[in-house]
């Protein structure tokens, strides 16, 4: 069986590695730092295919929905392989409005969901506050999506790491890929710590850093940029036990099963800077407090900053390339956790069988580099 190297030990690299190893491929994941500490760690873990989609992103929407449907199988297989149960939590999501401008915005979202046949419910202010009593009384009405799900992405990362190694995969941390070696239109390995390592396939899963990996040909550089996201982890206590996901204007509050209340997230074009900043934290807290006044006294656990891999059109870049043996799995932007199952299943199948995945049709890197004949 051929050998595959995965560049990057985030949720995408780990899940791909696991699926390949499980199917008998010899896989090495090379991770520059510690695996699972990039965007995948900072992520909130919402699995909401409808939350932030543009009006013309319908294909991405369907990809997300397909991936969501794969989660039960994905987490079950994972449990079988590593003994850790990471379950989908159907928390439900409420989108409150606080003034007339919000109402207009919600109306637009409502119409969009209705148009594409998604379940959506418009609730009054008092109904909304019955569903989530900690919601501010200033709420004038809300959209309620009762089947919205989330997952503990940190636990998922731990589980994937164990499952990957149990299936025979090898994870090398502190191994930065310094070059992707390509000869005669075919990939033949990578360079790490100055040493050439051979392999038949290489998968680029370097998250926000994917474009910075040396050795990729100019016409195959994934157009991915870091999109900075800051979140605040509050610790829930009896003075404020939010149980539903709340997506207010410009902020979400997400109660996690580990006792955190995530207040997120900023969305900034700041390059690779990962410093938390006063202004963004202030804005998140202010908006979070407007939606749920009771967060005022909650202790702050920590602040996390992650870099989302944002492709130029904000759709994932998953599939093969003109170079034999070179694959991409990056650019997942705001939906990387949600898109983990479909990326792992479809791309691993593609690599093993040699048959392109129809589900991934249109998401390849070639869309950015149209052939000039």
């Amino acid at each position, binding site marked *: 069986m051929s050998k595959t190297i995965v560049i990057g030990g985030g949720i995408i690299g780990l899940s791909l590695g696991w699926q390949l190893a499980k199917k008998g491929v010899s896989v090495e994941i090379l991770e520059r730092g510690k695996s699972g500490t990039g965007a995948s760690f900072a992520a909130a873990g919402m699995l909401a295919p409808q939350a932030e989609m543009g009006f013309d992103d319908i294909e991405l929407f369907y990809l997300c929905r397909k991936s969501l449907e794969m989660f039960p199988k994905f987490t079950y297989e994972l449990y079988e392989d590593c003994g850790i149960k990471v379950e989908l939590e159907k928390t439900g999501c409420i989108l409150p409005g606080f003034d007339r401008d919000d109402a207009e915005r919600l109306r637009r979202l409502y119409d969009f969901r209705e148009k594409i046949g998604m379940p959506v419910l418009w609730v009054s202010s008092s109904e909304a506050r019955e569903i989530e009593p900690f919601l501010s009384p200033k709420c004038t009405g809300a959209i309620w999506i009762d089947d919205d799900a989330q997952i503990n992405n940190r636990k998922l990362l731990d589980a994937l790491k164990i499952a990957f190694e149990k299936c025979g995969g090898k994870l090398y941390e502190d191994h930065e890929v310094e070059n992707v070696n390509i000869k005669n239109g075919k990939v033949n390995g990578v360079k790490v710590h100055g040493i050439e390592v051979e392999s038949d396939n290489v998968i680029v899963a370097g998250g926000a850093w994917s474009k910075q990996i040396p050795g990729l040909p100019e016409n195959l550089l994934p157009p991915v940029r870091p999109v900075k996201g800051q979140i605040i982890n509050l610790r829930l206590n009896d003075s404020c036990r939010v149980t539903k996901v709340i997506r207010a204007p410009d902020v979400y509050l997400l109660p996690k099963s580990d006792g955190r209340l995530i207040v997120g997230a900023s969305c900034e074009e*700041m*390059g690779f*800077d990962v410093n938390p900043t006063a202004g963004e934290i202030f804005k998140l807290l202010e908006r979070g407090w407007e939606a749920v006044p009771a967060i005022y006294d909650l202790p702050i656990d920590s602040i996390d900053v992650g870099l989302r891999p944002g492709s130029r059109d*904000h759709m994932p870049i998953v599939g093969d390339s003109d170079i034999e043996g070179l694959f991409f799995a990056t650019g997942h932007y705001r939906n990387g956790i949600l898109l983990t199952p479909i990326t792992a299943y479809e791309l691993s199948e593609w690599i093993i069988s040699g048959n392109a995945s129809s589900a991934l049709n249109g998401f390849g890197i070639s869309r950015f580099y149209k052939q000039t004949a």
Partner: protein
Amino acid sequence: MQSRADNISEEKMNKLTIADRSFNSRLIVGTSRYPDPQTMLEALEASGTELVTVSIRRLNLNADNGQESILGMLDRAKYSILPNTAGCYTAKEAVLTAQLAREALETNWVKLEVIGDDETLFPDVTELLKAAEVLIKDNFIVLPYCNDDPITCKKLADMGCAAVMPLGAPIGSGMGIRNPYNIQIIRDIISIPVIVDAGVGTASDAALAMELGVDGVLMNTAIAGAERPVTMARAMKLAIEAGRLAFESGRIPKRLYANASSPAEGIINS
């Protein structure tokens, strides 16, 4: 031979001149809040704009070694970059931001914004005047975003700004031109370019602004926040052209009663 319509559209309509530079399009477009960069690039293309404004404080200015960044995506041969100081609340911050932009982007043009409060995003006039003074002295080409107040605009023009940019309505509100009379007065009393900045919601707003005789319109949210930004960008391009042509052509006077367009009297005699 060229028809008369062609003459107007090429000579009068198409050129917007600010300071020492001329632009074929009278539309200036912002780069924030698009669903994704690809859509932004396509919308800019569809809008026909040649002058693009970027928020210095919200962008990565130091993207080197092949980093993908919004600024890096903008084709500088196609678009002139107009840095703006959005997010600044004091003259001091605005001046520093403009200087940072000059260094990083190698342009001494700046769209000067000094915001008074974050609910309305209205300009803080005293801070704005202060910042404009400092920047003009420092050899900047200053395009201040200001209230639709003729006196403020006059002061800014007299100080040596290259254009004035009165708001049509609050930033991002999409409320259109709320005080067309003020805009008209500003147009009348000021000889440098007047650009309506902010407030446009849809194409007719842009056309209306142009019919008032202003030199151009700057917009961002109206395009970026539309359900389909690229087609909205094209709508805006057409609206700006239509509005300008209508202004150049001189509209008919309004009257209360009908005035038959093919007079009945002439027919019998001929």
